[in-house]
């Protein structure tokens, strides 16, 4: 039985304020399919579930259609609705035990719908209930207990049994696994998969992205009542198109992600719709997003713009004012003016040579808005050259650079400063990157003075203090007068970070920013950098030779060898299952498994083929003759004729 929601909007009224809980949500679930609704709390997931069941509170107003098999159910009377509830649509509510009546034994509660609808007598009903509970894995001894004697997992099973007792066609599950341990979660997932297999339409409301990706066929991402993206479940964790979906994925602690949790900058609580005056006309209405620490006035959002723009890593001016509609891109549909996650920097075939040294072979590199990309590789592999070309500090010999959708070379020729403002650079040696004759204040204020971008009514001192506070440095006048040689390395590196951030760049290029720091200071500086990256929504190109570090901070990793990128992919995949033997060598070296990484030089090294030939354990003829091309393997790209697969990895 198919289930459809068309243009559903829900508003909760509260005096002159109304809360917009849902806005024009359209979803459809075919029998045997599962749709997962994901989103932060407050995004309207539960409201949607309740709206389907006709359980919205009396202060709510609803627009749009909800239909089962083409029959509208949203405008039915209470009595008619009652017939549909449990019979056609059942819902498993959130928060387990509170949904059970504490004074009735569970078997009676599960049997209740049967008895209520006079479908069977008490004895028969109890038998059916027993059967249903057993199917859900509730043991005999628990059947006659009261709800408070059950554990969370058992309660969830009881609720599932209850929902299934009338064999409904449509099941709505609201956070079925939120409070469950991993094993119970697996069980519940199994039950849901079974629902699907017997042809039921399942609406899964969850914030568990892995479960959504594993169980659902389609995922809808809800943000402040709007669907921002609807995408095939397979793409949820690896190929999201909307920046919000990506950010959600980064905030979710899966077992495979190595990076520290990302989070999303800013907060959003709910959307208020104000109605001032007596007229019910649009000009008296305005929407604003309630966020913490903001008064009514600050929170005003322009009525038409994208709801997510204040937290988005790639928002542009248009996002504030233009209305955004859902847009079909492939099998995704997204609500984004920029058509999904944009590339902030795109290098195509860039190469560089210094004299007769080829520092960089033609290389492609794409940085997406808001991600942290780590470049790793041994010394001399061209990491810094690639970073400097990305930052616009050096020009490539050939190839093109595109930064924020503009040709970087032409842009730099015409107006280098406006690029410089948008790219911050942090250098490997912090002490040397500040003139020894500059005090802390002068060093941090230098970019401002060069760019003269101070707005009227704002003093340089204020801007400097603000950015120093951001990097957790003192704003004391005495400290501002200090010279670099009077500071410790950690403080100098923070000053450098402050310098890089003071112009509010969108891309941060960090060349081994912590390699000159001791581990404890390094940890602090890195934590700071990552916090700032999230807080400011920066894109970061991070160069390091420390793979452990790259694992902790990178969303994606690029491995460089002899001036080429030989492997690019999501950090966890590259590190847990490297496809290129060189990546594997690097990782094994870090683990202490490699005794002698440098084999005696051989003539093969100068061959026209793969640069890894002299050290490759799985050498074949073709490797020495033809340089390998970049090939796609799963979600990674590898430059190898015989990329490792998981099996081969363990076999050798």
């Amino acid at each position, binding site marked *: 039985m198919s289930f459809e929601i068309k243009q559903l909007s829900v508003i909760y009224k509260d005096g002159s304020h109304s809360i917009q809980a849902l806005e024009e949500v359209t979803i459809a679930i075919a029998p045997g399919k599962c749709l997962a609704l994901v989103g932060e709390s407050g995004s309207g997931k539960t409201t949607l579930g309740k709206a389907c069941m006709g359980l919205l509170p009396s202060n709510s107003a609803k627009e749009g259609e909800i239909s089962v098999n083409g029959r509208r159910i949203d405008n039915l009377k209470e009595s008619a609705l009652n017939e549909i509830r449990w019979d056609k649509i059942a819902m498993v509510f959130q928060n387990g035990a509170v949904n059970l009546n504490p004074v009735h034994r569970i078997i009676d509660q599960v049997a209740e719908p049967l008895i209520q609808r006079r479908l069977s007598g008490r004895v028969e009903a109890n038998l059916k209930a027993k059967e249903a509970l057993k199917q859900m894995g509730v043991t005999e001894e628990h059947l006659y207990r009261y709800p408070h004697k059950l554990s969370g997992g058992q309660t969830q099973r009881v609720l599932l049994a209850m929902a299934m007792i009338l064999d409904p066609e449509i099941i709505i599950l609201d956070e079925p696994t939120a409070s469950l341990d991993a094993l119970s979660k697996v069980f519940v997932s199994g039950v849901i998969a079974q629902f699907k297999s017997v042809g039921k339409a399942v609406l899964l409301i969850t914030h568990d992205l892995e479960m959504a990706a594993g169980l659902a066929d389609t995922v809808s991402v809800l943000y402040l009542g709007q669907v921002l993206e609807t995408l095939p479940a397979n793409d949820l964790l690896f190929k999201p198109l909307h920046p919000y979906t990506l950010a959600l994925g980064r905030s979710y602690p899966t077992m495979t992600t190595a990076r520290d949790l990302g989070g999303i900058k800013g907060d959003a609580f709910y959307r208020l719709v104000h109605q001032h005056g007596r007229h019910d006309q649009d000009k008296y209405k305005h929407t604003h997003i309630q966020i913490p620490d903001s008064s009514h006035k600050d929170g005003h959002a322009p009525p038409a713009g994208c709801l997510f723009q204040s937290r988005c890593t790639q928002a542009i001016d248009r996002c504030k004012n233009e209305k955004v509609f859902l847009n079909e891109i492939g099998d995704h549909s997204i609500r984004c003016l920029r058509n999904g996650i944009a590339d902030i920097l795109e290098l195509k075939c860039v190469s560089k040579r210094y004299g007769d040294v080829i520092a960089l072979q033609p290389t492609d590199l794409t940085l997406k808005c808001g991600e942290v990309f780590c470049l790793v590789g041994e010394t001399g592999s061209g990491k810094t050259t690639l970073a400097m070309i990305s930052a*616009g500090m050096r020009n490539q010999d050939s190839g093109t650079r595109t930064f924020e959708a503009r040709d970087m070379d032409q842009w730099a020729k015409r107006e280098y400063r406006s690029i410089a403002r948008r*790219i911050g650079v942090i*250098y490997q040696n912090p002490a040397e990157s500040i*003139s020894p004759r500059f005090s802390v204040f002068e060093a941090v204020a*230098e970019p401002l003075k060069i760019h003269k971008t101070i707005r009227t009514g704002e003093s340089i001192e204020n801007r400097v203090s603000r950015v120093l506070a951001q990097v957790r440095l003192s704003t004391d006048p005495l400290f501002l007068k200090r010279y670099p040689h009077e500071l410790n390395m950690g403080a100098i590196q923070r000053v450098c970070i402050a310098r890089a951030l003071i112009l509010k760049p969108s891309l941060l290029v960090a060349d081994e920013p912590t390699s000159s720091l001791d581990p404890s200071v390094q940890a602090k500086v890195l934590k700071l950098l990552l916090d700032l990256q999230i807080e400011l929504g920066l894109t970061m190109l991070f160069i390091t030779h420390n793979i452990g570090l790259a694992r902790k901070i990178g969303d994606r990793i690029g491995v460089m060898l002899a001036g080429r990128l030989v492997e690019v992919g999501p950090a966890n995949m590259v590190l847990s299952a490297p496809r290129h033997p060189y990546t594997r060598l690097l990782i094994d070296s870090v683990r202490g498994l490699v005794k002698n990484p440098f084999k005696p030089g051989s003539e093969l090294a100068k061959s026209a083929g793969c640069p890894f030939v002299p050290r490759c354990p799985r050498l074949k003829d073709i490797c020495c003759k033809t340089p390998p091309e970049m090939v796609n393997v799963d979600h990674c790209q590898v430059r190898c004729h015989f990329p490792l697969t998981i099996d081969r990895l363990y076999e050798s």
Partner: protein
Amino acid sequence: MNADLRRYIFQDTWFLTGFSLAIVFAVTVLAGPPLVPFDPWDMSFTPISPPSAEHFLGINDGGQDIFSELIFAIRNTVTFGLVSGLVALGVGVIIGLVAGWLGGFLDMILMRLADVLLAIPAIMILILTAALFRPSPFVLSLILSGLMWPTISKAIRAQTLTLRESLHVKAAAQIGGSNWYIIRRHLMPEMFPLYLIGLAAKTRMAMFMEASLAFLGLFDPSRKSLGMMIGYAVKYYYMDIWWNWLLPPIVCLSLLIMTVTFLAISLEKVLDPRLKDALG
């Protein structure tokens, strides 16, 4: 920084010595001429008389008061030295910075020009010019600076080439600093010691040069100069005048050169914050 610096610098022996000497010479140069007891061109005294209460250093062969002559000579020598030194420094720094920072064709042209000038002996040019054209001392000092800048600009250019590879200069260029900004804020302050060394060396050289030319009699004989005084005194060396006529201009010339050197050393030490701790 300034209060610190002032406190620090007055504890430095080099500076104190140089500074005291400089004050003495400055007073001599500025306030000396109006205060001298006699007109140095007045030839009305008994020639070659030993020092007396009236004439501290006696009278020379022309019947002029040696002390008054000395004061005027110091002024001429110092002025000549400073003007030549400053002009040479200015030209040298500008050419060195431009050549080093902008590089390329301009660098090549300027440095070849410097090589050519370096190959020409300055004293020869000066002697020839002075003998043939009899220019004013000011023009002569300009000609001398025109010959002296190459060493300064070579040093400045070399330092600029080093500095342009240093991270803070690269960082400033990355941020978008203009050529002028980088030269002004990052390159010029870094080379302060070079200016002092250059200025000291060139002033020293110019003072010496002036003394030499005057010694050879290539200046207007009525222009008082330490070199000229030495030159005349040497002619009467067989008489017992070396201590009152020959020695004073020699001592003054040496002290002038020492003053310049001492000040250069102490300022160099103080103005570089990294050297401050190291040199004590």
